[in-house]
Structures are given as structure tokens and as C-alpha cells.
């Protein structure tokens, strides 16, 4: 059956770039001359000023599968996507693609600003390999999806950026690609369109498309992908299910205890001498469990005659998304005093992953008056007995029961009432 075939296969993929423009042009001319003479270009070795942007990347994507590519900026994700799309030629390895490729590397590329939405639908469709008949057939559906109704005959240069992206996306997904390459475009557009585009991609998946998704949104990666490659400096650093890759990814981003930099130390009336994160036994917290008890101790000191304010504790994702925040009651201490304040969290309530514990001391205005802060990484290990693909950031205890059987006409044996936990 078709469904078990790989729609996309990359073997030991390599692509090198040149750091200097001058070398780049010289190499290009030399390679072209060699190819014109029937000789291969020296693609396997690095020449001066060259580096491998993608190096030895291999994977397979089957129909109905979503492969996620994650990694820091410049790790080679987009270059890989461009190789898969045939925009760039590999310097090493081999790519096999089965069927029509739809690329959402940048939607609306090829739009002409002077032309109307209607005209651009046909131009963009042709660029994506659709025939006029095919575009005619899908036209109404594209317009409905893009929600540009009244602006169909307006030049696209008068479109809002959201409309522009919606139209580009609408055309691309209506080309019915067998392989869809998506580069972060889902993040544009409003929340409504975001949901709609996701649904459309899911629909394409059900119809047997294979998808490669590049994103910095770990949530998207977690919910969408069947498998993930974590890339670092052009190489595959980790490969596996979304949870384990995101875990590794966050480790890469892991920072040392981070203290906000203050230009003039003398201006800060209050500082932390020390912030410690402990487990229940009072030992420095290593790897926590999703329901671990956590204690934060902060040693504070002020240069003001008398300091009045509050402490702030916030759990954040590694990219800074706030998960929950707690403020202390008002604290008050004098110059020369060193006070210790303790925050106790009965359960950290987070699923496995890396987080940042943001601890700050504020004036009476709290969030508007953060005077000094420190971020500490918090490492939560997933429970070994739960599915590793669990989606979500929070851990909460949920009891599962089976209710009394509903009255039914069938004489089937009622299930044994009982309790089980998942």
C-alpha cells in the first residue's frame, strides 16, 4: 500500500555555504565551468571560507506523518527545507520526493503587488504547479478559505499583511500537495486563521500527505509532529518523539542562573545575595518530578534606610511564556539587615521539561516596579509511566472512574464498575 511508503527520503544530506560574497561568486563561476565541461563540482570538500550549513542529515517521512525540525537560529532547518523543495541543490547525499511538493517557505512569494487578489491566485497557482483548470475548480474554495471576499479585485499591495498571508496560504494548501513543507508560517495571521490553517493541514495529513514542519513553537511541535529532529549547527543532535526532542532542545537553551544586568549597581536599593531552589529534604533541587515539592530561599539585603516591597515568583517556559505567578505579602527590612525569605510550592505541577524560575524583588507597585530579579533553570523529569507524547505544560492529578452503566436495550454484559488511573 501507498500509505506505508516513504513520501520523502533524505540520505546523508549536506549543503555548504560560503561566508564571503567574493568567494561565493568565484566558486560559482568555477563550478559552472566544471559542470559545463561535464566534470563534477568539488562539492564534497570545503574550500576556504566555506562551511557546512547542513551536514549528514538523514530521515524519512511517510504519508500521514509529520516530521518536526527544531533547533536554534542558524541550525540549518530552513536550509534543509529548501533542499527538500529543490530550491537549493545538495552538495552531498540524496533526496527522493514522491509526488507534488507544496512549500510554505514563504507564502505569497510571486505575488505581484499591482495585481488583484483574483489575478494573483492564478499566478501563484501556476507557480505551485496548478493548471488553470485546477485553479478554476478550487477558486471559490481558495477565496472562502482566505476570507478576502470584498477585496478579491483589489491590488494585493493594499492588503493588510494578514490578508496577504491568508491568500498565499490558501492557494498553497489548495494545490493538494503530497508533501507539504511548512516554515513557521502558521504563526502569522490571527488566532482564528491559525486554528483554521492547522485544521487544513490535518485534513491534508488524513488524505495522505507527508508534512515537514519547521517551528520555534514547541507547543505546535508537540501537538503536530509524529517525530522530531533536533538540529544543531547543521547536524542532527537528537532524533525521536516530540517530548524527548523538546526536552533536549530546552537543554541547549539552558542558561546559567541569570541575573538581570543593571547599569549602575548603586542605584538598586535592594539585591538578592543568594537564591536557592531546594527539594523537600532541603537539598539543592536536581531533577524534579511533576508533583515535587519545591522551596525557594532568597537572601535579601538593602542599601535603603528602610525597604518596603514584595517578592515575586514566576514559573516560565524557557522562551519566557509565564505559567503562573505568586506575590508575597508586603516585606519590610532595614539597611544592614540580611533577611531570608522562603517560598514553598507544594507541587510544581509541571509536565516534564525545562522551565525558568523567575524570582524578583519589587517595590510596592509589584510588576511595574521590579527592582532586582534572578532566573534559575528548573528541570522536571517526565513520569516514566506516562506516555511520553503527553501534550501540555501543567501536571494535574486527575482521578478516572467508570460511571454506572447507562440503561440500554442490549443484553450485553455490563462492564465491571471500578476505578483505574491513567
Amino acid at each position: 500500500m501507498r500509505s506505508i511508503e516513504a513520501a520523502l527520503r533524505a540520505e546523508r544530506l549536506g549543503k555548504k555555504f560560503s561566508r564571503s560574497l567574493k568567494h561565493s561568486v568565484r566558486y560559482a563561476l568555477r563550478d559552472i565551468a566544471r559542470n559545463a565541461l561535464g566534470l563534477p563540482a568539488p562539492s564534497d570538500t570545503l574550500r576556504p571560507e566555506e562551511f557546512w550549513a547542513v551536514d549528514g542529515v538523514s530521515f524519512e517521512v511517510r504519508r500521514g506523518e509529520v516530521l518536526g525540525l527544531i533547533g536554534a537560529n542558524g541550525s540549518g532547518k530552513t536550509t534543509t527545507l529548501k533542499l527538500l523543495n529543490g530550491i537549493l541543490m545538495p552538495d552531498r547525499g540524496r533526496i527522493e520526493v514522491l509526488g507534488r511538493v507544496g512549500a510554505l517557505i514563504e507564502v505569497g512569494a510571486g505575488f505581484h503587488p499591482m495585481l488583484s487578489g483574483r489575478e494573483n491566485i492564478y499566478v501563484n497557482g501556476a507557480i505551485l504547479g496548478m493548471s488553470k483548470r485546477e485553479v478554476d475548480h478550487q477558486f471559490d474554495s481558495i477565496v472562502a478559505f482566505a476570507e478576502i471576499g470584498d477585496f478579491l479585485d483589489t491590488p494585493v499591495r493594499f492588503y493588510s499583511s494578514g490578508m496577504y498571508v491568508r491568500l498565499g496560504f490558501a492557494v498553497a494548501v489548495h494545490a493538494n500537495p503530497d508533501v507539504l513543507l511548512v516554515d513557521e508560517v502558521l504563526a502569522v495571521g490571527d488566532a482564528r486563521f491559525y486554528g483554521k490553517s492547522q485544521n487544513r493541514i490535518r485534513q491534508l495529513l488524513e488524505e495522505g500527505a507527508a508534512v515537514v514542519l519547521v517551528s520555534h513553537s514547541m507547543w505546535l511541535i508537540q501537538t503536530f509532529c509524529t517525530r522530531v529532529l533536533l538540529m544543531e549547527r547543521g547536524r542532527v543532535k537528537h532524533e525521536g518523539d516530540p517530548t524527548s526532542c523538546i526536552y533536549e532542545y530546552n537543554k541547549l537553551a539552558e542558561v546559567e542562573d541569570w541575573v538581570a544586568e543593571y547599569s549602575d549597581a548603586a542605584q538598586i536599593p535592594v539585591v538578592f545575595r543568594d537564591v536557592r531552589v531546594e527539594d523537600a529534604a532541603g537539598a539543592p533541587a536536581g531533577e524534579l518530578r511533576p508533583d515535587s515539592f519545591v522551596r525557594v530561599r532568597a537572601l535579601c539585603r538593602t542599601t535603603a534606610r528602610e525597604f518596603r516591597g514584595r517578592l515575586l515568583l514566576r514559573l516560565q517556559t524557557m522562551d519566557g511564556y509565564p505559567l503562573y505567578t505568586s506575590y508575597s505579602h508586603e516585606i519590610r527590612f532595614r539597611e544592614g539587615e540580611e533577611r531570608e525569605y522562603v517560598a514553598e510550592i507544594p507541587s510544581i505541577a509541571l509536565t516534564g521539561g525545562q522551565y525558568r524560575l523567575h524570582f524578583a524583588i519589587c517595590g510596592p507597585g509589584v510588576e511595574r516596579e521590579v527592582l532586582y530579579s534572578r532566573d534559575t533553570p528548573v528541570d522536571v523529569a517526565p513520569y516514566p509511566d506516562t506516555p511520553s507524547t503527553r501534550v501540555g505544560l501543567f501536571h494535574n492529578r486527575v482521578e478516572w472512574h467508570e460511571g454506572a452503566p447507562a440503561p440500554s436495550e442490549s443484553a450485553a454484559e455490563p462492564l465491571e464498575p471500578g476505578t483505574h488511573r491513567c
Partner: protein
Amino acid sequence: MKNLPRAAHPPEVRVYTPDQQIGWGPAAWRAMAGELWRARELTWRLFLRDFNARYRQSVLGVAWAVVLPVATVATFVFLNRSGVLNIGDTGVPYPAYALLSLAVWQVFASGIGLCSNAIVAGGGMVVKINFPKETLVLAHLGQVLFDTAVRLATVALVFVLFRVAPRWTAVFLPLVLVPMVLLTLGLGLALAWFNALVRDVGHVLTPVTTFLLFMTPVLYPNTNKGLLAVVTPYNPLAVLVSAGRDVVITGHLTDPGSFAAVAALSVVVFVISWRVFHLVEPRLAERL
């Protein structure tokens, strides 16, 4: 949502490896011909796109195609009447002669100008989408052909105004223009990619085409005196312009041998250039 049935035809397998289709073997030509055939719809769309956009905010519109030749010819008529220039016998009234010559000449001059800019102008698409890049060049050539049709229509009008009847052989003009188009396309393809690598091309082109215009008997008749008479038989552009003029005005080619040779040369230039363009094509995106 309406969907076309998937996999109505067996899905095509694409393979990308380093150094695909290098050299000059038959497989390369087959691939190129196939790509050209599949790209016909896109070429047409890109042509329409640029065509529609070009005249959208323009008052004169298609008339712009004849503004430059008419102005040039008017200048020469003025200089001739003032006795500054002495243009020899042209057989038909000078404006008709010069406009016809310029219409043929501009296939080359404006063709080179537009085609050489095709890749650079389409740079945004080249780095973001995978599509046959020659469509960009061909779409620009389409514009040139359209402009040529407008110019020839103007020439016909001028012939009527001056009550000059063209020879019946004028119907062969499109055929005689084919080598000119191939030569232009060949050079255009080469300049298009070279311009993407080395941007000097755009700056060099205008002075060069101006120089060639004056070195070629376009605005003046062929001569048999001086250095020009020695050079002209070896100037392929002179042969092609002269042939275009001949079928309309005299009804026979002045030098069929030279025309055949230049036509063959045009085909060779086009074929080599087309192949080289394909060798360069996969390397373009990373250099823009």
C-alpha cells in the same frame, strides 16, 4: 472544501543529488525539453502578470512601445532636413525605412535589456520557490514580442501614410525574425544568470547597445565605402536587421548566404546558452 481526486496519475518521483545532469548528454536535453513543456502554463501566467501590472497605472499604456523609436526617427529626420546628417538613398521614405529597421533592431536591444534583468527582478521568487527559472526570461521575451507587434503595426500605419506598398514577401517577416529572437534569447539567458552573479551587467548593457545601434546600419542604409563596409558583413546584427528590412522593402534578401550563416549561428548560440542556463539554474538560489 472541494478536492481534486488525489493521485489521479501515478505520483512523480523527484530525486535531488549533487552534480545532477552535468555535461551535454542526451538525458540533459530530454530533461530540459520536458521542463520547458511543463512550464508553459507558468510562463504564460508570468507573462500575463507582468503584462497586466505594467500597464495598470500607465496612461499611454502599450503606446510606450513606440515612443522611443518614433522619437529617435523624428530626431534623425530633423537632423537630415537640417543638413547636419546626410543619410543616403533608402528606397522608401526615410521615416518608414527607419521605423521598420528600429522595430527589428529593438527585438534585440530591448530584448537583451529585459531578459538580462529577469532573474534579478524575480530574485524574491528564486530564493523561495522551486520553479523553472527560464520562465522568468521567457515571460520577459513575451513582452518583447508583444512590443514588437505594436511597433510593426505602427510601421504598417506609417507605410499607409506615406502611400508605400510593402512587397508581398513581407508575410515572411515573422519567419525572418526567428533568428533574431533566438539570438536575443540566447544572449538574454546568459546575461540573466550572469547578471545575478555580477551586477555590472546592467550598467554595461545600455552603452553597449547604444554603440551597436550606431555601428549597425539601422538608422542609415548599408554602405559600400570605408571601414563600415568592411565590418558590416561580419556584424550578425546588421545581417539580421537588413534581412528583416529586405523582405518588406525590396522583396529579396541582399545576401542570403550571410543570412543562412547568421541564422545557424543564432541557433548555436541559443542551444549552448540554454544548456549552460540549466547548469547554472540550481546554483542561482544560493547566490542571490
